[in-house]
């Protein structure tokens, strides 16, 4: 269940450690803009409001109150249970991704405050093996949900995952979908409020598990969200896909998300929803 090739609508992903150019061509409006101007305002295009990629770390800074984030389970680390080998061994790929992104895995979880409300917070970073879910993403998220249940915290998970369930860990990755979904069912039973935030891209096994199970589902504008990758669908049906297919707006129109929320409003929208639900 992978859709790794879905770069449609994805901004050129700045790779950490790689020097950024001064200029940036916007995927949304094709205008050339000052990178620094976008970076000053939530990584949005100053001309058209296009939502560029943000790292997990930036996301945490944008959504949580400054200095309140405390990371959980960073000692849960990936291994290579299948001895998987494509053009390089998975274990080497992991090391390379860790070095390139500065992340130990595709999900960062922990606790922090949103306008002085304590929450359990998770984010998947699409830069780390397409933000795909392997055992570590599943385990960190399951522990996050379990702690949110125990500590009666509202739960926020921001998804950015084009890769779905990670192929390199085979069936173990697939089962993380069931594992995290089962933890969310218990959280739901305990009356917890789960706000799922979908960002570009959220596909495959991530879309088909926790990301779609929010009591409230928000999405950033023009994000690519869906089950099957556009290429897979085109190969199956042999038809051109309609314009705007599998975007946030498409999902809103078909009734699968509650609100489209621009990044600059995300924090206040989450805080307000928490208040409405009395959490």
């Amino acid at each position, binding site marked *: *269940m*992978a859709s790794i090739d879905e770069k449609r609508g994805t901004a050129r992903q700045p790779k950490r450690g790689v020097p950024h150019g001064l200029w940036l061509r916007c995927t949304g409006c094709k205008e050339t803009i000052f990178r620094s101007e976008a970076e000053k305002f939530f990584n949005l295009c100053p001309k058209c409001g296009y939502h560029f990629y943000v790292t997990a770390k930036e996301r945490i800074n944008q959504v949580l109150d400054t200095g309140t984030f405390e990371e959980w389970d960073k*000692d*849960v*680390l*990936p*291994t290579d*249970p*299948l001895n*998987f080998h*494509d053009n390089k061994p998975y274990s080497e790929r992991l090391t390379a991704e860790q070095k390139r992104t500065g992340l130990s895995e595709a999900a960062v979880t922990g606790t922090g405050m949103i306008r002085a409300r304590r929450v359990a917070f998770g984010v998947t970073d699409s830069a780390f093996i397409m933000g795909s879910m392997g*055992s*570590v993403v*599943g*385990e960190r998220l*399951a522990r996050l949900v379990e702690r949110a249940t125990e500590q009666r915290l509202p739960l926020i998970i921001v998804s950015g995952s084009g890769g779905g*369930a*990670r*192929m390199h*860990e*085979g*069936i*173990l990755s*697939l*089962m993380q*979908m*069931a*594992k995290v*979904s*089962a*933890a*969310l*069912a*218990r959280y*739901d*039973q305990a009356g917890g409020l789960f706000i799922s935030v979908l960002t570009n891209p959220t596909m*495959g*096994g991530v*879309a*088909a*598990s*926790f*990301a*779609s*199970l929010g009591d409230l589902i928000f999405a950033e504008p023009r994000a690519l*969200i*869906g*089950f*099957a*990758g556009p290429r*897979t*669908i085109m190969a*199956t*049906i042999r*038809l051109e*896909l*309609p314009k705007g*297919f599998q975007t946030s707006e498409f999902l809103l129109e*078909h009734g*699968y998300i509650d609100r489209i929320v621009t990044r600059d409003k995300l924090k206040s929208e989450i805080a307000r929803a928490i208040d409405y639900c009395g959490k």
Partner: protein
Amino acid sequence: MATQNGLPFEAPIYQLEDRLRELLANAGSSPEHDDEIRRVRRELAETTRRIYANLTPWETVLVAREKNRPYTADYLSLVFDEFVELHGDKFFGDDRAMLCGFANLEQQKVVVIGHQKGRTYKERSACNFGCAHPEGYRKALAKMRLAAKFGLPVICIIDTPGAYPGIGAEERGQATVIAQNMYEMSRLPTPIICVVIGEGGSGGALGIGVGDRVAMLEHSYYSVISPEGCAGILWKSHQFAEKAAKALRFRSRDLLQFGIVDSVIDEPLGGAHRDHHRMAARLKQYLIKTLRELRAVPTPDLLLGRYEKFRRMGAFLDQASIDQSGQASTEAAGVR
């Protein structure tokens, strides 16, 4: 049950089967002739055993997809005394790729949910080759809820290349329905047994795959992605499907080792496609035995067990728990 299209690696079996057929036409003509029949029979069994003991992962995929392999509908007539089909997702339409209904298993009333592939071309296209749409998953969940309400155990029969990838499927919430099925199955207050009978194709399989017991037939496979899909992404060509099949470790014995399935149900010599009745009898025996076990478990314990079963799945290093327990090894609690 001769194979029309044939599996390439079964060629020596077909030759011996043909030879045996010829000999049997003149059986009893002479003692030497009958000796020869016995000899060819032995050789056939030996050859079949040898080939099936050494299937490659890709060959296993071919067996799992074999056109004469028993499908859900075959087991519905061979394993159960009665099947009362229930259509109606009460939302959009009737998905022929998902069969649901009441069934009777040796006096035990159950609800059966299963992917259906179809055998003739007409059936296959009506069933989308076993690829269910959102309405199929919605129908499945509706019937599982019905089962729980009236105290009936659920049996899920998994056999799909994957959930259908199409425009309508996306419009009607393919991702959402699969997520909701896992979510609800994890807490459905009735016993659930899942059996992969052929193809366990990623999310499409897992959408009816959360249960108290998960079993696989010996030559089935259960994977995060099809070998062709994996090859297309990682090796940039579907031609590397054999390589991907090997890398993905998706055969029944692999899954048993990873702690994903509880049991592997042995297939008759030469695969389920050679003997539907024997395969069905083994499946029936497994279901009766497992159902008896699960019915003895109080519901809260059942649900706790189901939760813990899936909660344990995964392989990772946990430095914190290693430090606490003072172990020098990097082998972690979470690694199975």
